[in-house]
């Protein structure tokens, strides 16, 4: 209780359950004190295992987990001063909301009046006062989540670990509880680590987004970085919002290179992040879906656009503030343009129309 720092460092953390395959394979990561960190990846990528290792429910096969400057491997959750919020909340069915929240204080031997007073203060904080005497089964999903949060937070942990906290809720509630999680994190001022497979959730909440695949970290950084500047094809596709194209480098000229593709003149890509490109390399590039403009054939391209790919409209989905237009621009790969609603309906396309897909040259991003 002397050390209240909740910064976390994972150093070479590995986990294998059977000794042969690694669920978590050499993860290195630093999470700042008081950060909201989201681990994101498909199921089975090891994100929950990392969470459970930080929580103390699983021991790493190799590597160190350092919280607040102290290696916590082998310590019980209480000694680590972490608390976990389980995926299905794991509220004790035989205890009321108040007793559930007071449980951690009860096992620490706090007197009944003291612990119930502390629980009531916490109940106030999560706005559940009128439900204090209910059983978990008599609460809605959102209320159960708040109880779980309060139960985990009452021990004043340095780190709160949340295992897919929003997956049990319906869409509308999810957005609402997302806000609540962020509010609680600010109020408590502690490190939150949140595991999810929904990229929207991750970028909406996190200071630090960690994208994982098969036990390895693919990219870690601020939400905007990960979304707008994915390192590689996997991150770009997983985070969404990007069109990924691949091709061979045709020529390299100064600050840009040209990718051979279906386009008559190839695709011009600025060099920025990838200085080491030579002719003949196979390269993936990403173009944000909302950067793609659609122009009818024969019309002038918008300023700054040098590439235009002839495409046919495959499908159109109205999404409210934008229209999702699916195109057959690249064989075998999805190519989608998010056209602002007003732009689209000024000159609407129909399925089967031939259009030119184009984007400002500077917005194309070469991937690793």
């Amino acid at each position: 209780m002397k050390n209240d720092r909740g910064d976390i460092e994972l150093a070479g953390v590995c986990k294998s359950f059977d000794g042969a395959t690694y669920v978590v394979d050499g993860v290195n990561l630093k999470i700042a004190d008081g950060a909201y960190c989201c681990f994101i990846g498909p199921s089975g990528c090891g994100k929950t295992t990392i969470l459970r290792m930080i929580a103390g429910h699983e021991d790493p096969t190799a590597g160190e987990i350092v919280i607040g400057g102290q290696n916590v491997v082998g310590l019980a959750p209480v000694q680590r001063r972490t608390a976990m919020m389980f995926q299905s909340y794991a509220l004790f069915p035989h205890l009321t909301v108040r007793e559930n929240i007071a449980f951690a204080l009860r096992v620490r031997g706090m007197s009944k009046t003291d612990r119930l007073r502390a629980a009531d203060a916490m109940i106030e904080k999560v706005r559940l006062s009128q439900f204090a005497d209910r059983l978990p089964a008599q609460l809605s999903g959102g209320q159960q989540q708040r109880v779980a949060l309060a139960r985990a937070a009452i021990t004043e942990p340095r780190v709160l670990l949340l295992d897919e906290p929003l997956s049990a809720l319906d869409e509308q509630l999810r957005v609402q509880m997302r806000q609540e999680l962020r509010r609680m994190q600010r109020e408590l001022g502690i490190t939150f680590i949140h595991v999810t497979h929904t990229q929207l959730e991750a970028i909406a909440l996190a200071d630090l987004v960690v994208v994982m695949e098969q036990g390895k970290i693919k990219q870690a950084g601020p939400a905007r970085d990960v979304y707008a500047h994915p390192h590689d094809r996997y991150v770009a596709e997983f985070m969404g919002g990007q069109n990924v194209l691949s091709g061979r480098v045709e020529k390299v000229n100064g600050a840009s290179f040209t990718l051979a593709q279906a386009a008559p003149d190839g695709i011009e890509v600025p060099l920025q992040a990838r200085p080491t490109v030579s002719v003949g390399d196979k390269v993936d590039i990403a173009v944000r879906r909302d950067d793609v403009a659609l122009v009818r054939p024969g019309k002038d391209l918008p300023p700054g656009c040098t590439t235009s790919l002839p495409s046919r409209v495959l499908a159109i989905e109205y999404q409210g503030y934008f229209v999702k237009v699916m195109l057959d621009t690249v064989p075998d790969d999805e190519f989608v343009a998010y056209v602002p609603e007003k732009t689209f309906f000024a000159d609407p396309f129909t399925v089967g129309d031939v259009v030119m897909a184009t984007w400002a040259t500077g917005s194309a991003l070469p991937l690793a």
Partner: protein
Amino acid sequence: MSAVLADMPDAVAPATTKAIAPSKGGRPWTFYVLAALFTFYVLALYGPMFCIYVLSFQDIRGGLVFPMKGQSLHWFVDLFTQVRTGDVKGSFDRSIKLAVIVTGITVVVSFLAGLGFRKRFRGDTVVFYMMIGSLVAPGLVLGLGTGLLFQALGLNASWYTSALGAQLSWTLPFGVLVMFAVMSRFNHVWEEAAYDLGASRWQSIRLVMIPVLAPGLVAVALFGFTLSYDEFARSLQTAGSLNTLPLEIWSMTLNVTSPSLYALGTVTTIVSFIVIGASLGTIVLIQKKRGSRSKG
């Protein structure tokens, strides 16, 4: 097919009745067939016992068969006073005590087995099948073997040693099976949550597992008690010189020729019902207590 069509008053008109369940009117004929079958089943189940109960309330002229001769509690008094009817009170006493001991051991061991089988371990299936094997083994043979073993070891067979062991070989597998069913509905994340919140192993068992599993534990206890209370085959060769109640009843059927035998049947049934009622009452009470606390 044609018959179906012929039955329809107007094939063209939109359907006014549902295909399977008629919307108005009575139940389908199958309901009455099944109801009759069920009534017969209940009669066959309880009829024989009712004969015993009814005949136990005859007066002093009563015999072992219908028709009923008078009505009185004569045979109940006779049961507990006459020496020639055997040691009913003593055997009843022993049976209750034995059942209580068996219940205690069964609940504790079944609960521990439930805890042990939460995770798979090396040889768990072997342990499980060996346990089930004792359910399949013929009780009489098992009892005989236990008796022989005690004799060979130079121990005296008695109701609280050899008979206790023989009965446990019967109640434990049952208790463990019930416990498995109960445990399968226990979410192990609750244990993990308790650990996460700082509970020791013992605290997690005492504050989370036992309260959540309480109704199931009562069910195990009920099994243990009733199985022991009327256990016959395994006790026969192991009870030693002093009889348990089922053994006493059996020996009475051989030499008592009065309705006091039936009176004994009535009394033991009442005891059984009290035990079952108390168990179910406890389960209801546990659940009610949880319900009432929640209304704040």
